[in-house]
């Protein structure tokens, strides 16, 4: 009972279990503005879905989840469309560069090694920094007396101000060069293509620390950008690899859209610093899991070729 055969995945699954998985990941998506691909795909593989089908179908469900999440954040005034479009353009360009880079790496062999090491280093670096920074912020008491002298500009701030095409991003409350989101979008696009994920968990820290956007706007804008990335991936995967299992995606997205709504409510109640420290913990947990998979002897030394 409650089992359904998925023709593209070629396996029967428990509908309730898949629904709950979708709900859990949707919840995280709504809270943190990350697509959840880096969590959902390994979970689906654990439940017998082939890796390539898991990754592609997950992109399809993220389309639904991020539509829902993005709309909820839009109603709350948390989406900076101007910033989102610029990051998206950069992301598409970077994605193209990243796909070409992967082709070259695969031809050279050991691409998987590089992908996994990149994962561990990126997740470890980003997660550790976010965790440390958030912890410092939480430990800070309310400032006693404002007697300090005007802060000296950091090199990074000076660099930001010296760039051409300065413009106001009203929703985010920052003034930046148009080049910044474009270039950073390219960087995230390259990494996302190499790592095979939507890039939310890289994009969020970049928006917070490099674009200096407020956390709540970051979440909505990130979901907006992820929506377009995953539309692109779903159509490409359906056409080239036949790996999008629509039924699987539909069950996941019903769960995840419900989860995303609850996530958005939770996100509103949490402070920015709390959000950051929770995301940092999540990123670090995934990093540790990946590190173990690199270091511990696998149970089976073979895996079907075609997915990773």
């Amino acid at each position, binding site marked *: 009972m409650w*089992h*359904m*055969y*998925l*023709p*593209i995945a*070629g396996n*029967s699954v428990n509908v309730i279990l898949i629904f709950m998985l979708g709900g859990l990941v949707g919840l995280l998506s709504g809270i943190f503005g990350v697509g959840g691909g880096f969590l959902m795909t390994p979970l689906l593989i654990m439940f*017998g879905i082939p890796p390539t089908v898991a990754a592609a179908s997950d992109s*399809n*469900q993220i*389309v*639904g*989840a*991020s*539509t*829902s999440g993005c*709309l*909820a954040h839009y*109603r*709350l005034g948390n989406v900076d469309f101007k910033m989102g479009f610029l990051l998206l353009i950069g992301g598409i360009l970077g994605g193209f560069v990243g796909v070409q880079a992967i082709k070259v790496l695969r031809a050279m062999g*050991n691409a*998987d*090694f590089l992908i*996994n090491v990149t994962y561990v280093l990126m997740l470890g670096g980003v997660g550790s920094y976010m965790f440390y920074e958030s912890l410092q912020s939480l430990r800070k008491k309310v400032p006693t007396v404002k007697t300090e002298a005007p802060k000296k500009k950091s090199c990074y701030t000076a660099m930001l101000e010296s760039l051409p095409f300065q413009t106001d991003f009203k929703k985010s409350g920052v003034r930046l060069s148009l080049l910044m989101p474009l270039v950073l979008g390219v960087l995230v696009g390259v990494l996302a293509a190499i790592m095979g994920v939507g890039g939310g968990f890289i994009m969020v820290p970049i928006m917070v620390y490099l674009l200096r956007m407020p956390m709540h706007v970051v979440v909505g804008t990130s979901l907006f950008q992820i929506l377009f990335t995953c*539309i692109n991936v*779903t*159509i*490409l*995967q*359906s*056409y080239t690899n*036949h790996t*999008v299992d*629509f*039924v699987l*995606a*539909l069950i996941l*997205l*019903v769960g995840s*859209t*419900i989860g*995303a*709504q*609850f996530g*958005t409510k939770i996100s509103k109640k949490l402070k920015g610093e709390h959000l950051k420290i929770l995301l940092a913990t999540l990123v670090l947990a995934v990093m540790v899991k990946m590190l173990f*998979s*690199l*270091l*511990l*002897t*696998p149970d*089976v*030394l*073979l*895996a*079907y*070729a*075609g997915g*990773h």
Partner: protein
Amino acid sequence: MKKYSIALSICFTMLLMSCGTVFADEDMSLSFKPDHVTIGTTYNGATVELSGTVPKGCAAVVRVMGELKDTKFKKKGKVLGFLWMNVATVELDHIPSLFLVATDSDIYGGGGKKWKDLNIGFDSVKGNSDTEIFHEFLKLVEHEEHYMIEDGVVKYHDAGNGLRGFTAELTLPSSLQRGDYTVEVLAVRDGKVVGKTVSSISAAFSGFPKILSSIAFGHEIIYGISAVIIAILAGLFMSMVFSDKGAAH
């Protein structure tokens, strides 16, 4: 002279019988139900009931095998002495996609020498494959329940006319693929296969899985765009539902 020829015929027949290699086709039979597996929306594995006859004194081993395929795998190995990564691509040629075996406990005996000497288990499809790679392959497919030996599921009864009747049940996995599967019964006596009868069972999609796979594999662009549109609509619908309840405000 006639006496001699009769004696010679009897001796020749006994010699053949002692070799244990000749049985008339009518000595062995096999039937199963269902004879066609329908993979519909609610498919979650299927049980096939098999029955038939083998010559008296023989044991029956039932095997269900998928089509032979050349399959590529990624092999993991250590890099820099401590990191486990995919280090090579290996291929196994002419390996069945599915291999299910039903035996009686006497023959199988926990996979002991008697069973190994018969060479009708998984090793019988190893071919020239590297032993270590094949061993890892078995770990993978046994975990997926695509290769399974169900020990002790073959039951016998007297079928009369010098025949031994058997019945068995085999469970097809929930991850069964479309295609034709060979079903065979091997008659085993004195540690040798002395007879074999072969049939086939087909598995095909029906209902929603059939419609969905035909669109996914025949109209890819339409399938991809539809998947995106429905996902967006589902997302918007869920937002509306929650919005009405004031969840998003």
